[in-house]
Every structure is written in structure tokens, then in C-alpha cells.
């Protein structure tokens, strides 16, 4: 009888030890993999192509990466570059919130940024200088009145120290993630 008890106890202890070891190993690996991958998603204005956001999220999920949406804000030359920009920040926060909600639904971690510059390219250059990332996903369409010009995209291809994925949604694809939180075509929350 005592032998059965000892065998059972050894079995339980073995299983518990194995479980703890496996859990520690898994956590270690998760911490290691989470530390390296960042996918930058720079954007301007009050809306961003939903296709670009979804592509960045798919990549982030597939590669176990963190999405870094970055709002590029223009600072007029009459103001210091490092000055506070509450109105722009308010708009940026709304956009970043909309993207974060979308990312959260897909279990993608988000580390958002707001970068200032005299032009979008200048803001992008500052961002490239300050942050490290493995991929850049950018929308080629200038949605609304703001956006990247073709020259900005060529500049990004030349300067970005990472893989660059430029997405150009089809002419009929007007789906966006926007400040007002709704997509114009589907009526579903963005």
C-alpha cells in the first residue's frame, strides 16, 4: 500500500516539476521574442487606410511583434519644434486609440508614438533616428488632404533601416480607420 502511495507521490511531483519547467521555459522564450520585433506604422491626418492597418496587424500577429503606430504632427516654423501641440495631440490620441482598439481585438501589443516635424518627412526622419524597428508599413494613398507624397515614399525606401512595405489600396477601396471611429462603407466600428 505504501509503495503505491510513494509511486503516486513521485508521479505527482514529477508532473508538477515538468509543468513548472515548461512554464518557465515558455515565459523565457516569450520574453526573448517580444523584445526584438517592432512594426512601424507611420501615418498623418485624421484617418489611415484600413488596409494598411490590417496588413500591419497581420504581420505583427504572424511575427509575434509589437505594432508601433506613429502619428506624424506638423509644427509651424513660427513655433519651436519641441513645443506642446495639444490640438494635434488630441487628434493623434483619437487615432491611436482607434488603432489600439483594432490591435487589441487581434491580441497585438501596441507601443504608440507621436512625432513632431516641420514636414512629414522631417517627422519621419526624427522617428527613424529615435526608434528601432524591423518593418515599416505605410499607405501609398494620401487619404483626405494629408499624407505622404511619392517623394516621401521614395525617401523612406532609401533611408529606412528596415524592410518597407508600401500598400496602395485599390481605387474603390476607401475603407479607413478614422478619428470618428466609423468606416464610411460598412458602418462598422473602425
Amino acid at each position, binding site marked *: 500500500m505504501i509503495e503505491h502511495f510513494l509511486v503516486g507521490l513521485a508521479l505527482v511531483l514529477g508532473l508538477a516539476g515538468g509543468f513548472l519547467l515548461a512554464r518557465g521555459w515558455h515565459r523565457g522564450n516569450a520574453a526573448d521574442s517580444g523584445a526584438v520585433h517592432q512594426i512601424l506604422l507611420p501615418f498623418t491626418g485624421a484617418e489611415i487606410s484600413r488596409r494598411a492597418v490590417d496588413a500591419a496587424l497581420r504581420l505583427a500577429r504572424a511575427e509575434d511583434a509589437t505594432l508601433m503606430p506613429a502619428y506624424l504632427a506638423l509644427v509651424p516654423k513660427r513655433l519651436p519644434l519641441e513645443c506642446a*501641440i495639444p490640438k494635434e*495631440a488630441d487628434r493623434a490620441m483619437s487615432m491611436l486609440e482607434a488603432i*489600439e482598439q483594432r490591435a487589441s481585438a487581434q*491580441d497585438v501589443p501596441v507601443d504608440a508614438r*507621436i512625432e*513632431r516635424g516641420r514636414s512629414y518627412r522631417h517627422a519621419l526622419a526624427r522617428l527613424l533616428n529615435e526608434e528601432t524597428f524591423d518593418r515599416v508599413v505605410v499607405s501609398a494613398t494620401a487619404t483626405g488632404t494629408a499624407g505622404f507624397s511619392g517623394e516621401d515614399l521614395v525617401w523612406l525606401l532609401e533611408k529606412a533601416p528596415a524592410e518597407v512595405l508600401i500598400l496602395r489600396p485599390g481605387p474603390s477601396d476607401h475603407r479607413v480607420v478614422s478619428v470618428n471611429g466609423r468606416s464610411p462603407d460598412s458602418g462598422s466600428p473602425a
Partner: protein
Amino acid sequence: MKPPGQQIEGELEHQVAALRRLASVLGATFLVEEHDDLVAAVARVVRERNSTYIMVGESNPPRGFARLRERLPQRLMQATPPGVDVRIVAHRGLKEEGK
């Protein structure tokens, strides 16, 4: 908040720099306080700056003997002057998981 003598370096330095830039964009003041006791340090800053609002992130669930200890929001409420709000910002990802 950091323990006295601890260096801010590596990934932490990067995150602190990003927070500092964000504070600058928002027009907020970014402080790095050295103290061994988080609650005491927060209470001191609140008194010095006449703050009326404290926002903290969601804590990890306590383990072991930490379960017996009073939770951070309660300790902040007790350590700060009357009239100071303490607000806990939930982790949105955890909210999605709980659905």
C-alpha cells in the same frame, strides 16, 4: 519612480525617452523621482504640486504573502490629502480576454 542609485538604461531608458517626448507633445511635465517607497514618493509629489488626480495602471495580481498586503490604490488614497482622486486605468487587452 525609481529606487535611489538605479540607472535608467537599455530598454527602460528607451521607454522613458519616449514617455518624455509624449509629455512634451502634450504640454505635460515629466518627472523622474528617486524613492524607495512608491506611495510615499507619490504622496510627496502630490503635496508639492497640489495635484488633484492620480492615475495608475492596473497591477499584476498579487501572489503569496503580497495578497495580505493592502492594494496600491487604497494605500495611495490613505497617503494623499483628502480630495485627491485615484483612478486605475485598465489594460484594454485584458478586458478583451475577459469577454
